[in-house]
């Protein structure tokens, strides 16, 4: 599992945005709670920011070097497996 989460070396920041309670964030919440450690293990020096705010649309932001371009993907209503896929599609 850990090796699968090794991300592209150009990725300089991952950001998960989610709501504390809304059902549409549930999958994202499950994914970050379960896989944070694996992501960190596979990419030990990558900041993986997890930010919660009421009503926030669950999203994933990936910033890549060298221009610092940010890509965003909505994670609304995705389950944990789909969140993983989204992460891979954006950051592999």
């Amino acid at each position, binding site marked *: 599992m850990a090796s699968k989460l090794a991300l592209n*070396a150009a*990725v300089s920041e991952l*950001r998960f945005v989610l709501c504390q309670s809304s059902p549409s964030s549930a999958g994202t919440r499950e994914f970050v709670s379960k896989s*944070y450690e694996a992501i960190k293990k596979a990419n030990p020096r*990558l*900041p993986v920011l997890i930010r919660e*705010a009421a009503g926030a649309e669950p999203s994933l932001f990936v910033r890549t070097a060298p*221009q610092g371009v940010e890509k965003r993907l909505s994670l609304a209503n995705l389950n944990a497996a789909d969140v993983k896929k989204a992460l891979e599609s954006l950051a592999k």
Partner: protein
Amino acid sequence: MSVASMSMWCRASCRASSLSLLVGGSTGPLLGGIHNNALVRTLSSSSASAAATPAAAAAVAPEEPPPVEVFVNGESVQVPKGVSVMQACDAAGVDVPRFCYHQRLSIAGNCRMCLVEVTKSPKPVASCAMPIMPGMQIHTETPLVKKAREGVMEFLLANHPLDCPICDQGGECDLQDMSMAYGSDRGRFVEEKRAVEDKNLGPLVKTVMTRCIHCTRCVRFATEVAGVHDLGVTGRGGSAEIGTYLEKALTSEMSGNVIDLCPVGALTSKPYAFTARSWELRPTESVDATDGIGASIRVDARGHEVMRIVPRLNESVNEEWIGDRGRFSYDGLRRQRLDAPYVRGEKGAPLRKATWKDALEAAAHGLRSTPSTKLMAVAGKLADAESICALKDLMAMYDGQNLQVEGVTPSSDAADVRSSYVFNSTLERIEEADAILLVGTDLRKEAPLLNSRLRRSAVYDCVPVASVGPDVDLTYPKKDLGDSAKAIDDLLSGASAFRAVLDGASKPAIIVGAHVLSRPDAYGVLSKCVQLANDVGCVSGDWNGYNVLHECAGRVAALDLGFVPGPKADVATAPGFVYLMNADDEATLASIPEDAFVVYQGHHGDAGAARANVVLPGAAYTEKGATYVNTEGRVQRTKRAVPPPGSAREDWEVVRALSEVAGLALPYDDVDGLRVRMAEVSPTFASVDSVQQSTIWLNGSTYAASKGSSKASTAPFTSSISNYFQADVIGRSSKTMARCVETRGEMYAKTHDVGSTLGELGEPSAHPLGD
């Protein structure tokens, strides 16, 4: 009236009863007996060891009795059982004049201004000290009441000087206001007025003791809220005086609040004395940025100058107090200011005034000509969220990944999970904690307002408090468990007796001081703290008692925005270009190599500007509408009270301008656009004035990557602030703060000369003063 304020009141009355025994003053006789349990608890708490079982506190959790109906001027109102007549009048919206009563202090009942009539009582009664009875008929507008209050006023004025025109309280004086309603147009006294010698209470509080009406609010505040036994009443009747007995300055870090409490002009602000009249001032409601608490303040300005800073009411943050640094360091905003850009020609040359164009070009050249691996940026203690966000985006465009937050050991883990670096329980709910462990913090210096909340828990609710860290007097009993990480190991292994207390508590709390974050072994210690928090059940249900206390205003915002080193940042590589955003710490500056090109952005010519090659002048917190995040993660916004001096600009504008000069412009060109971007980086920024709870608590895996590399050392824990008054550049530029340090130093020397006798008396040793 809310339930919360009622429970507040019950606490106050419990303090009233303790006061009556402790100082033997005239107190509310009728309320004295009500809270006997509370009284016993209060008194035993001061002698009992701090490790009393929390069960005692939990066992007396009050049940809500049914409300009681009373009639105020014929109107029926429902109030909780046991409240005072004055509370009932307040609940009914009927104003009762008062001098001595204050809802956050115990009841003294000694000014008699609050007289009202109640049925079946032949005499008017002091409403603040009289509990209600079911069906009680209260009258506040009768001729008898008016006459009685006029009588009280006449006696108060008999000995009060008629110096309103030269009194700083003039225009905002309770006595002056009430004499309009109850004062007589002529005096009947021909005797000479009583005069009282002024007391020297140090550099902050000015006294004109002849004006004192002996309400004892100041005495009660010092004893109950600030926890210092500095003030008291000496003498009786006509020769009663308020003072310190032996001349000494107030030793509290929140002493300035007695100025707001004093209903007359007896205690006024010394630095503000005779500088302005209250009606000339232009008030701006803002937020204090001199510490991590983020107290609500009002900045009173005249023209382009801040004349004074006073607190605003904010129950969830500062109640109605502020610390002395926040209140009095404003004169530092006028001195040592950077009012124009500066550029250093070549190495060793002095800084020279430059135009914005030249300065920005020099900075942009430095930025562009340095390889990305050698770029570094530091977010300092006074930096606001807008400029941090803009700087982060600017660095990203040049692939500069070495981003650091001042006072945090650089690590890509530091900002990952929000619950790992904020004060999760919130300031208000920390009072629900039933066992508290402090790690590496001196609360009295780092957050006096939080300390007074903890004092309330420890003294009035018998909450056991223990500390791993500096052995300092926090004004309440606490158990010292040692000063190194070994003590945390003992707690983890159960070898320490306090572990059982934490285990037995239903809402245990751990407060980790900012000092821990700055240690080389920060992540080793933090993972131990997180481990302990898990083991003792700090995080369960809606309670998260794992708290990190930041001592400065800029840090939480920087962490929220992810201002941490990226994967390519090599913290060990010597940086060639350093951008200091309000960063002036010695530790930060010491890590910058000689030949690095340094850009300093900030508002004071302090250490950072002295080291810089280019200085870009920014605005201080009173001069910009900027976002700060307090230690709880509460997003708050300041307002511009005065313009920045000279050609200084709001900080985010400077970064935006630099980005344009450097060739890659940031994608936002107004502050709203920037705030949208901030909310995109962290959605917490979207809701101002509220705390977004961080519910994700990654048990133990928070510091997965960095804990292995930093093992906890045995170096002793200290405080992140060694000198309360001069903890930031504003304090260091302030004359008033310098005077405080001097006075404290003198007092320290004095008490140490007579140290032996004081030692025998068992006095607590003097607080380690501004050393």
